[in-house]
C-alpha cells in the first residue's frame, strides 16, 4: 500500500509482517491464556480504569496479535489490576496475570 505520509485520521494500518512471533511465544509461555481470548469485550465493559481513560484488555490483546505492541502497552498502563475483568471473562482467562505478562514481556527494559 502506498503511504502518502499524511492522512485525515491516524493510520489504522496493520502490517502483519511486523508481527514478532518470538515475543508472542514468549508471552504465551508465561500466560498461555492469551491464545484463547475470543474478543468478546466483557472485560472492557466492566473495566474500572476504562471508565475514566481509554483502556481495554480486548483491544490490547488484538493489538498484540496485530503487531502493535506499543499501542497495547499504552492501553494497559492505566489498569489498576482490580480483577473485575477476570471475574467476567467467559473464557476464564487469568486476565490480571495476562496484563502483567504483556507489560513485562513487551516493555523495553
Amino acid at each position, binding site marked *: 500500500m502506498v503511504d502518502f505520509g499524511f492522512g485525515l485520521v491516524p493510520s489504522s494500518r496493520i502490517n502483519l509482517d511486523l508481527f514478532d512471533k518470538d515475543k508472542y511465544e514468549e508471552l504465551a509461555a508465561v500466560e498461555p491464556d492469551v491464545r484463547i481470548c475470543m474478543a468478546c469485550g466483557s472485560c472492557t465493559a466492566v473495566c474500572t480504569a476504562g471508565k475514566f481513560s481509554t483502556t481495554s484488555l480486548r483491544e490490547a490483546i488484538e493489538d498484540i496479535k496485530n503487531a502493535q505492541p506499543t499501542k497495547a502497552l499504552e492501553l494497559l498502563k492505566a489498569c*489498576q489490576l*482490580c480483577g473485575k475483568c477476570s*471475574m467476567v471473562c467467559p473464557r476464564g482467562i487469568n486476565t490480571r496475570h495476562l496484563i*502483567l505478562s504483556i507489560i513485562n514481556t513487551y516493555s523495553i527494559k
Partner: protein
Amino acid sequence: MTPLFHLLAAQAADPEVIDRIPSGYSHFVIPFTIGITFMLCWIGVGCIRLLYAIPQADRLKFWKSLFLPKTIVKNLKDLFGDCLLHVKIWQRKPLLGYMHSAIAFGWFMLIVLGHIEVALFVPARLNVTRGGLFYPIFYRYFVWMNPGHTTLRGSFFFFLMDFFLLYVLSGIALAVFKRFRSIVLGMRHTTKPSFADRVALYSLWMIFPLRLLAESFTADLSGGSFLTVGVNHFWHFLFGDKLWFTPCWWAYSICLGLFFAAMPFSRYMHILTEVLWILLRNAGIQPHHPRKGVAEAEIYACSSCGLCLDACPMNVQKKNLKYSSVYFIRFLRRHNEKKINAIADKCLMCDKCHALCPVGVDAPALRRAQRATVNNALPYDYSYLASAVSSGQPSGHGRVHSRFAAAEYGLGPAAVPETALTESKSPRVLYFAGCMTHLTPRIIKSVDKVFKAAGVDYVFADREGGICCGRPLMLAGRTEAAAVVIEANKKMIEESGCDTLVLSCPICFKVFKEEYHLAGIKVVHYTQFINDLIISGRLPVQKKEQKLVYHDPCELGRGCGVYFEPRAALNQLGTLVKASKEYDESICCGGSLGSLTLDSRDRSKISEASLDSLLANDPETIVTACPLCLKTFSEAVSNVRGRDINVSVKDFAEVVCP
C-alpha cells in the same frame, strides 16, 4: 530428722563429687567441640550481618524494643511459649505439640540442669579455659560420686536429669514414628528433608539414645536415677562387669558434633534463629526485601515443620504441594530465583499458613516483597485519576440529610449543636462499595435496604463507579502504583467529611484499615456496622427457621480479625451451624485476587474443598460477607457435578434484609 539445711551444710566437709579425671579432658570431646564452635561462629557472623542489613532506623527501634517493659514481657512469653513449649502446636495438634515441646523443652532443661550441676559441684569447670564449653555436657563422664555421700540435693538432680532425658526420648520416639506414619500425629503431608536435614535429623535421633547408653554405662560411677541406674543394672546382668563406656561417649560426642556442624545448613537452624526472629517480630520491624535483613531471620526461623502444607488450600491437589510456604522459604534460602518467583506468584495470599505457623513466619508478606522485585518497576500511568476522583465524588446522594436520624443513631454526637448539623451538609456515613461489589449489585441493593430499614442516612461514595482500593495492586507487588491509587481515594474520602466509612468488601476493608491512615474516620466492615445496628435496636430483626453456615472470607477473618460480629448478627437471624473448618482455619473460596498464576481449573478444585467444609452440617444457606466469595460460591454450587447440592449462597446483607 535433720533439717535439710544441715544436710546441705554437712556435705561441704566430705565432697559429694570427686573429679574422676583431674585434667577434665578426654579426646572424645573433640568432635563435639569442633561442631559447636563452628555453629557458634556461624551464628555470630550471621547475626552481625543480619543486623547490619536492617535499615538504621529499624535497627534503633530493635535495640530500643529490648528495653521496653511491654516488649520484654511479650518477648519472654513468646520465647517460652513458642520456642520451648510450642503452645501454638499444642492448641491445634496435641500429640504433635507434645513431640515438639518434649524435644525442645526437654533438651533445654537438660542443658540448663547440666550447667547448674556443674556450677554447684565443680564450679571451677564452668570457666571456658578449663573446658567450660564441653565439660557441662559430658559432666557425668568426668566425675565420680563419692559413695555414701550422695545428698538429697544430688539425688534430686539425678532424678531431674533422668526425668527430662526420658521426656526427650519420648519426643524422639514420636518423631521417628512421625517420619513413617505422620497421619497419626494429625499431619497429612510432611516435608521432604534435604541432605543436610537428613544428616541433622538422623544425628538428632541418635543423640539421646546414645546419651542414655553412655550415661547408663557410667551410672554406677557417676550416679543416676531411675532410668540410668536401671539400665545400668541391665547391662551388668547382660555383660557382667565388662562395661566399655568410652565408645559410647565417643559416639555420643560424634553425633552431637555432626548435628551442630550440619545445623547451619539444615532446618534445625530455626532453633536458634527463632529467638532472633521473635525479638525482631515483637519490635514490629517489617521486611523490605524478600531475602535480606528481617526476612533473613524470618526464613531461617522456619522449622520446616510442614504445618503449612496441610493448611494451604492449594494442596487439595497434590501437584501444588511444591508451592507451599515451606518450600518457598527453602528456595529463598537457596537463592533459587526461578523457582522463588513461580512459587510467589501462585499463592492465593489467603494468609492461612501465616495464621497457623507455630513460629509466626509471615510467608505471604515475603511473597509480596518477592513479587515487588519483579512487578514494582513495571510502567503505569494513572494521570486520569485526578479527574476520576472528582467525578466519583459523592453525587448520587438520593436522600435529604435527616438530622433526626443522625442524632438518634448517634452519628452526629448529641452534643453537636443543631446549627452545626443543619449547616454542614457533610455526610456522616460514607459507603464505599468497591470494584467487586459493583460486579455483584445484589449486595449494593441489600445494603441499601438495610440502611433504609435502620434509618441510616448515608452517602454512596462510588455509586457512579469509583476507582480501585489499591489492595489488588499491593497483592501483586506493585506498591508504588498502589500508593497513587490510595492517595486519590484518600483525598476523596477526606473531602467528603464523613466520620464513618462502611465497606462491604473485605479486600477494600483491609487496605483502608492498614494503609489509608484516615485520621478521625472510623473504618468499619458492614458486618460490624450492621451488627451494631442490631444491638442498638435500630434494626429490628426476626429469627427465622433457617440453617445458616458462615464462611470467613480470608481478608476479613485472618486479614482483619473480624470473626465475631457477623456470627453474632447471624445468630439473631437463624440457626448458625458449624463448618468443618472455620475461623482462622477457614478455607479460601478459591476466587482470591492474591494468586497471579493459579488457573480456573485449580481454583475450582479449591472452591469445592471450601464448599465441602461449609456443607459439613447440612446448612440451607451459605452466608458470606465478601463479593468475591459470593460470586465464586454461587458459581461453584451450580458447577459441582455428580452431586446433589441443595444450598443457596447469600450475602450477609441479603440475609439481614431479604
